[in-house]
């Protein structure tokens, strides 16, 4: 087995002093795709934000290691520069900041060196084409007026441009029509390889038929309750989370 790209040990995260993650362990070997499923409110997005370093998600215990390096205390931009990427469940609209200017700043920062304008345009166009974005999106303001599906697809376009070593996709499939789901899945699959680890957070097996996971985890009440193969996703879709106990009882 490859070295883990992501290794989370006994992670405890609180939001506004309310504990959400309560001792979570997770290890993802580089090159693998893992799925994370779990009921609403179980803490999946909290985990995603904690991995990316969102300041509202207070890490009160445990560690996050990325490629063997402890990133628990790092700023989000430092993590991104190491090769970490989060496709958000609700991508943020940033008024007045054009997609082009933003992504040039982003690519420059992640590469750690100036990207020549021609080289940037070339890569930008490639990523746009892969995710079926028209050139006109370059001049639009970041996520402003994008449809729900366009926002999700644009997250993967950014991933294709930035070429991270590890990506968390937080419900990228929610709200996508069949065609968009295909485009997104093909995009992710084309990036898949020994140099990319992926954590797909989802409620549905639909996306997992396109992007086949190596491992499936179930999250209940801020912890990984079960880990299995792809068949676990099918079971969950059929039976739900009842066998893990009522969510209310778990949260109480």
């Amino acid at each position: 087995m490859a070295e883990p790209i992501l290794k989370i040990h006994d992670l405890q995260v609180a939001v506004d002093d309310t504990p959400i993650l309560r001792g979570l362990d997770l290890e993802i070997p580089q090159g693998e795709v893992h799925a994370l499923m779990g009921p609403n409110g179980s803490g999946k997005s909290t985990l995603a934000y904690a991995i990316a370093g969102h300041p509202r998600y207070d890490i009160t215990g445990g560690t996050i290691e990325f490629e063997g390096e402890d990133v628990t205390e790092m700023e989000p931009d430092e993590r991104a520069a190491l090769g970490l990427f989060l496709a958000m469940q609700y991508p943020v609209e940033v008024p007045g900041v054009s997609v082009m200017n933003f992504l040039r700043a982003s690519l420059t920062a992640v590469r750690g060196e100036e990207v020549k304008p021609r080289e940037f345009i070339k890569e930008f166009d490639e990523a746009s084409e892969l995710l079926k974005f028209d050139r006109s999106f370059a001049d639009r303001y970041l996520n402003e007026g994008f449809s729900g599906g366009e926002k999700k697809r644009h997250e993967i376009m950014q991933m294709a441009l930035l070429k991270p070593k590890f990506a968390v996709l937080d419900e990228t499939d929610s709200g996508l029509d069949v065609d968009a789901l295909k485009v997104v899945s093909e995009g992710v699959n084309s990036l898949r390889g020994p140099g990319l680890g992926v954590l797909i957070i989802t409620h549905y097996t639909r996306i997992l038929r396109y992007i086949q996971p190596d491992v499936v985890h179930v999250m209940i009440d801020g912890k990984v309750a079960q880990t299995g193969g792809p068949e676990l996703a099918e079971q969950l879709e059929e039976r739900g989370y009842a066998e893990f106990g009522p969510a209310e009882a778990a949260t109480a």
Partner: protein
Amino acid sequence: MASPAWADEARETARATLADLPALTGREEDWRFTRPRDLMLEGPEPEAPGAVGDVDVPEAGQRAVRLHLADGAPSEPAITELPDGVVVGELGSALAEHEPLVRDRLLKLVGAGDKPGALNAALWSGGTFVYVPAGVDATLPTETVTTATGAAGRVATRTLVVVEEGARATVVDRYLSPDLPGRVHASTAVELFVAPNAELEHLAIVDWGAGVHHQMVLRAQVDRDARARSVVVTLGGDVVRVEPTMQIVGAGADARALGLFFAGGQQHFEHRVVSRHEAPNAYSNLLYKGALQDQARTVFYGNLIVPPGSPGTDAYQTNRNLVLNEGARADTIPFLEIETAEVKCSHAGAVGRVDDEHLFYLKSRGVPEAEAKRLIVLGFLQEVLEHVRLEELRHELEAAVERKLT
């Protein structure tokens, strides 16, 4: 050429008014936020801090005419191309050379009735005169750069623009200086006459170095079905107070006062923006956005005035401020004075901080915090820049704001 007798008399009257007017104390309602003596409206005549040389005037884009007023002193304009009948000249020379065009208009919008007005009317040394005859298109910008070199304690200039019926014009006033070793007072009066069906875009770019204390009073008179836009960009100067008024005198007019400012260090900016609907069925929009950091202080006062007899008025006023750190302070005072029924008016003022979610989104893509904030501030101000009609000017302004932000 000697200036005509009426002009000399106007100066004399202004001098007398200046001497007669009671001293401004700073306790007046209009002067609560910026002390009159910080603008050298009271106190001894400012002394020249000593010349440090003129500023390098950045080669901006294509211009029809360029005029450079060093310390406000008159000079010859450099004319590239002007459509037939269009006059662009130094205002002092125009008093005699274009007497019939100037005489009835000079001091009619910004007069000598109050302290700042009287001071400018008495002391102005140079200025800009633009006249566009009916139906002529002069949208290629005319630009005047007024600089302060430190050789003079006061720099007092005026701009007079007349756009006749159905004509179009773009006029840029830019104010620049190097950092000066002491205080210089700048006084500016801008009068804009926009005739029926005419179109005018006026840009004032205030980008002084340290030491300059500037007061600008701008008034546009907007006639029937005319479109007038005032854009004020305030970036540089220790204390800057800008007072634009859009005075609508003809039905169906469209008047916009747009502004953006970025203040840092100890800078103090006050913008007092008014639209006055003296005719029915007109549209006005005041939109000012500012960002501030360090210990900067900014004040926005806006007023929509709709006197009786202006039904069908459609007027908006918005001021938003982005405060980048504790210690900087923005005040916003949006006002309405509405005395006509059947009008549509709205006003909004807000002071906020950089949204954490915006910052996180950018940082999560690798953009370091300082650069992310810069992008967010530029994005915030972009809404105002979008209204600048000429694309080339818009890009120049974006570049000026970006320079200030680094």
